[in-house]
């Protein structure tokens, strides 16, 4: 039994935490949160210099070729720090889509630039409120051009390229879907910044009007390719969520250990202690599920869809609970703009919705359980 990260991976994690503690305080987060910039360019550059974007990109494509376990430990620290950089959109989604569905030429074209921090990518799925389904996907990719609309695309304003889920034929359901890559600076692309609950991750609306696009993967495989991308992204995002939940627990504890009410530390009241104990329990369960996801991802195990869904649901629940109860532990001061509680509360919800809501993942989880029981 060796269900833990290696000493080298833990060292990488410590280094990442040390770096982010110094270079990505909540002041850094607030600069983006309260400003018009989509991300912190200085931080992005420093992260690129350390090679983080290329952690799981093979060396032949300019990456470090380390692997997903290394990427997961970095993800946890980015989540803890609420790092305002387009890392998840670029690395977990765009790069993974290229690695899953891209041709050799596409890999050679995009991956080295991602690894070097010279390309920001994003992934566009939603076209309106409600579930993303083959039926709800109307953007049309035909004859090398893309026409249609995509909404709520994380980091969409700053991205250079987008992977877009689109309809490429009249075949019904998912058989008609295909992924494509669009140069967002090209003709026929209009972008509009959308207001979002967590402005430390800006969102965009894309309107494509005959924009030049290249196919990514085969026709009819758009849905299954998306599914694979989301599984991988769910595992890494779960680590961000665990990091965020852990940060909330530390914040709540630190505050409860300083604040007096009715003549004693509020940390000595069971109403507070039990709340923090529950945060701890949920976060540990989520961490363990995330570890299993990391194992499945790093070994390419066939359990990945189930492991990813479990990691996703568990980590979403843990971060949700920790972020709202952190605010509650702080009392009135926790509901002020100045206190950082709301940064976590908002990031927690953004991560819970990005990649699809719990309802979707829970249904998928049970579908996978049914499959694994049938096998």
């Amino acid at each position, binding site marked *: 039994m060796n269900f*833990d990260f290696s000493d080298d991976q833990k060292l990488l994690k410590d280094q990442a935490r040390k770096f982010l503690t110094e270079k990505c305080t909540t002041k850094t987060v607030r600069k983006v949160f309260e400003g018009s910039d989509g991300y912190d360019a200085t931080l992005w550059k420093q992260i690129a210099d350390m090679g983080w974007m290329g952690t799981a990109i093979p060396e032949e494509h300019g990456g470090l070729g380390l692997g997903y376990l290394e990427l997961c430990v970095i993800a946890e620290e980015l989540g803890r720090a609420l790092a305002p950089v387009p890392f998840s959109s670029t690395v977990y989604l765009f790069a993974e889509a290229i690695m899953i569905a891209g041709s050799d030429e596409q890999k050679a074209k995009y991956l080295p630039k991602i690894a070097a921090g010279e390309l920001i990518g994003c992934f566009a799925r939603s076209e309106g409120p409600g579930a993303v389904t083959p039926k709800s996907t109307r953007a049309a990719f035909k004859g090398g051009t893309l026409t249609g609309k995509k909404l709520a695309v994380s980091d969409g304003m700053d991205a250079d390229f987008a992977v877009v889920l689109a309809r490429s034929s009249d075949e019904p359901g998912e058989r008609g879907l295909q992924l494509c890559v669009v140069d967002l600076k090209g003709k026929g692309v209009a972008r509009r910044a959308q207001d979002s609950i967590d402005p430390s991750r800006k969102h965009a609306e894309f309107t494509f009007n005959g924009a030049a696009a290249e196919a990514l993967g085969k026709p009819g495989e758009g849905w299954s390719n998306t599914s694979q991308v989301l599984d991988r992204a769910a595992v890494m995002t779960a680590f961000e969520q665990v990091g965020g939940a852990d940060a909330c627990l530390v914040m709540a504890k630190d505050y409860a250990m300083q604040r007096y009410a009715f003549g004693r530390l509020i940390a000595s009241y069971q109403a507070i*202690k039990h709340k923090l*104990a*529950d945060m701890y*329990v949920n976060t540990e*369960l989520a961490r363990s599920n995330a570890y299993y996801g990391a194992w499945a991802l790093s070994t390419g195990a066939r359990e990945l869809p189930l492991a990813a869904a479990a990691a996703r649901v*568990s980590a979403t*629940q843990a971060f949700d609970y920790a972020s709202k109860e952190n605010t509650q532990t702080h009392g009135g001061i926790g509901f002020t703009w100045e206190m950082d509680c709301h940064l976590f509360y908002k990031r927690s919800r953004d991560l819970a919705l990005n990649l699809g809501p719990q309802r979707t993942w829970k*249904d998928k*989880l049970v579908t996978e359980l049914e499959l694994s029981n049938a096998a």
Partner: protein
Amino acid sequence: MDFEDTPEEAAFRAEANKWLSANAKLRGAKKSADDMAEMENGAAAEMAASKAWQKKKAEAGYARITWPKGQGGIGGTPMQSIIFGQEEAKYDVASGGPFAIGLGMCIPTLMAYGDEAAKKRYVWPAVCGDEIWCQLFSEPAGGSDVAGLRTKAERDGDEWVINGQKIWTTGAQFSDYGILLTRTDPNVPKHKGLTMFYIDMHDPAVEVRPIKQASGGSGFNEVFFTNLRVKDSQRLGEVGQGWQVALTTLMHERLAVGGGQGGGLDEKALMGLARTLELEDGPAIKNASVRERLADWYVRSAGLKYTTYRTMTALSQGKQPGPEASIAKIVVAAKLQDLAAFAMELEGEVGALKGDDAPAAGAFQMGWMSAPGLRIAGGTDEILRNIIAERVLGLPQDVRVDKDVPFNKMPTGR
């Protein structure tokens, strides 16, 4: 990251399997209802078989693997103990339940505080299953607040005279010995006036009465002491040091009670049920609310399973496991209660039936009726949350109004 044994662990697993296959048969699928019944009644049903299997294991050194050779063990590692348990679970053998408290809590306390003669006399008979031990701590006036106990021990020359009552004593009805926490000095604050003894449960001054639980089963007892005389040599630790001795025992309790409970009644069982039932809108397994709840419980079960793997990894690497192991019972007990109630909802009006008249031989009904007990036994949900808050997160203790008050000056209510 992997789930593989080290070469040494694999060799031990093979060795354990060789011994197990020579001494037992592989088991078929166990029913959830059987697990639930065992949890209810303390596994007393097949005592003779349990004792016989325990003796075989003790002689082979598999009864307490981490203990020394000749004392039922092989001086092995905690990991070897886990591996043997995993393999043993695949075989159709009698439950080791009756020995869990004695070997998990009482005998380790005796080993830490008893004299050489006592160790020589009691360790082997306990480990080989000839003698069963129980733990006599909880009282009507001291449950979560064990140190509030009132059972009195008064010195009389070389003996002590004990009067009082214990409650919630698991397995007292078939125990031969027990470790007993008493009050020897009511004039000092409650934690300072306690003393620990071990006693003969067959003494006529000891009366055991089974408690009929709200669930209908009887795994627990009340135990009454009327002028019970014990020798001073049966004292464990110094006079007035009973609380420190009890902490040694309780440290072992959470390891013994913590994991693995709740029987086999989990989301897999619920899924099995949902496959067989029709709801208003079709098969239960296709119902969105059913699927949502299944996923909720699955991630808690899986989270616990992989938390155990993290603990095992630490043990396998010879490290001290982290505090994450302490979360199991809180999660399992509450989940059992919710999941069982939800299953009964799916069964509809028929869910109000039990036993063979109910689906799945009444497993969910039995789980639902047992769950309140599981949320209390071995540390209530509330006490366990206090423990996590204080020992894991380092939060301060609650204000203790009784801390410096002599025991006999403390207010008492119901």
